[in-house]
């Protein structure tokens, strides 16, 4: 049975789906009260940000004479928002659709999703940590009022201050791994062997890091109370600024509530030379992995040359926020028309 049929049979289901409406209204009201501008960014783009971990949806733009130009569905509003910061728009945000191919067969990912991104000019990422806590409490008030916040049978306390832990601390505490030493490829491989993970000469550092992170660290994060996990290895923080006192780490944080990873924040990289270097290595990686290949957006590098003000920005998964506040175990249960329902009628070629 499709979702619209289930709702027709049991209209009380609607209440759960209406949580999305309240969450989005609440986000707008929160940023409106803080004098942020809401801006629109394109969904149809000529150059997505070069990110090797993302697979794109490619399409073709035709002119009146049917001459073809490659086009893509936007994977994130990030580079457009940063261009607007260069233009001088000031603090701003966008709630928009983003598209990532191959992200199916999951209760946490859908190929078409709603993303909230906001940027603060002149502020370090710690400021966004505080703002995150305030935003979630604000939404909580609008959606649940005085009712207890429960997710999948567990009580969630978002009122007391959140836990803040560095990735380095988390690795040491939960996986008994010294992340500083783990940066050394040889050492990392020895740890993987000792822990009996499969590892070959092709295994990248990122894969080893995430293998331990996903198996031994993440299951402990943000369970009792929300957790902000900060200072990620620079190797997995493509558009963020490196930490001045230790460039092996970047000023990036993620926050988790009830075990759900909800947002990813950076002190933004403003250096065009460094950005170009990282884009080049991402494009190299995209080719190596055999993913859809494209050139990076040189206009973005140009914008950085003109001068991106020092700023911090965050991307938050709106669908996951809706999951959390509507107590849905599966991201598809927050959508009237989830992709899996839409496409399961047409099994793959």
């Amino acid at each position, binding site marked *: 049975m499709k979702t619209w049929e289930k709702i027709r049979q*049991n*209209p009380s289901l609607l209440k759960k789906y209406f949580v999305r409406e309240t969450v989005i209204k609440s986000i707008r009201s929160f940023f409106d009260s803080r004098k942020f501008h809401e801006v629109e960014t394109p969904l149809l783009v000529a150059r997505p940000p070069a990110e090797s971990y993302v697979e794109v949806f490619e399409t073709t733009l035709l002119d009146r004479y049917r001459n073809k130009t490659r086009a893509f569905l936007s994977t994130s509003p990030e580079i457009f928002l940063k261009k607007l910061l260069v233009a001088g728009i000031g603090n701003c945000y966008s709630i928009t659709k983003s598209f990532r191919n191959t992200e199916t067969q*999951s*209760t946490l990912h859908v190929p078409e999703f709603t993303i909230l991104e906001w940027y603060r000019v002149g502020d370090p990422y710690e400021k966004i940590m505080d703002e995150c806590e305030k935003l979630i409490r604000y939404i909580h008030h609008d959606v649940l009022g005085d009712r207890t916040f429960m997710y999948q049978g567990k009580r969630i306390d978002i009122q007391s201050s959140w836990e803040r832990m560095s990735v380095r601390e988390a690795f040491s505490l939960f996986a008994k791994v010294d992340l500083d030493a783990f940066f050394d490829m040889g050492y990392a491989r020895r740890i993987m062997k000792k822990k009996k993970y*499969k590892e070959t000469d092709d295994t990248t550092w990122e894969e080893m890091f995430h293998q331990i992170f996903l*198996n031994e660290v993440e*299951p402990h994060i943000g369970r009792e109370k929300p957790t902000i996990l900060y200072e990620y290895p620079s190797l*997995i923080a493509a558009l963020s600024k490196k930490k001045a006192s230790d460039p092996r780490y970047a000023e990036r944080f993620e926050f988790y509530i009830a075990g759900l990873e909800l947002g*990813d924040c950076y002190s933004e990289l403003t250096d065009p030379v460094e950005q170009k270097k990282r884009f080049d290595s991402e494009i190299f990686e995209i080719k190596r992995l055999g993913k859809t290949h494209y050139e990076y957006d040189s206009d973005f590098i140009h914008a950085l040359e003109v001068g991106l003000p020092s700023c911090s920005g965050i991307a938050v998964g709106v669908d996951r926020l809706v999951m959390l506040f509507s107590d849905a175990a599966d991201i598809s249960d927050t959508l009237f028309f989830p992709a899996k329902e839409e496409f399961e009628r047409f099994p793959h070629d």
Partner: protein
Amino acid sequence: MSAITTADFKKGMFVEFKNETHQIVDFQHVNPGKGSAFVRTKLKSLKSGRVQEFTYKAGDAVIEIPVETHEMQYLYKEGDGFVFMDNQSYEQYTLAAAMIGDFASYMKPNDTYQVLVHNEDAVGIRFPKKVRLLVSEADDGARGNTATSATKTVKLETGLVVSVPLFIRQGDLIAVDPQTGSYLERS
């Protein structure tokens, strides 16, 4: 035994994990914030019935443990096990309750099921797409739980309670999906 990758994963499949046979109870793909694809898997140990989580890199090689499917008649429940008889060899097998899980509430003595056998041991059951069961108790006059909902709950011959459309009556034979517990059709 054959080498497969995470792309071949199916629920119910048996694989080698930490040198022991495990059944894949559930799996899903995950992508960390800035990272490649992984497959979060729930694996149930054949030995202990204990379920644990492991996250594979997408594309990792895994050893699949082959299992045979034997048609067997369900005889009776004994302690923590369910006793079956092989329809061909007449040999009896006991299947641990942990390996049957919720499906036990769909099983009727004397009915035939597809039992999975590995190394002479019964290790699981292949769930049929639908199970037909008689409605043993139904409020035939029910007008639904709310003014707008067109469903009511009925009890089936195995004791299972399911939600069905209002026209279903006591004595009807209905088909239920054992994976989701939802009503499919009246036979």
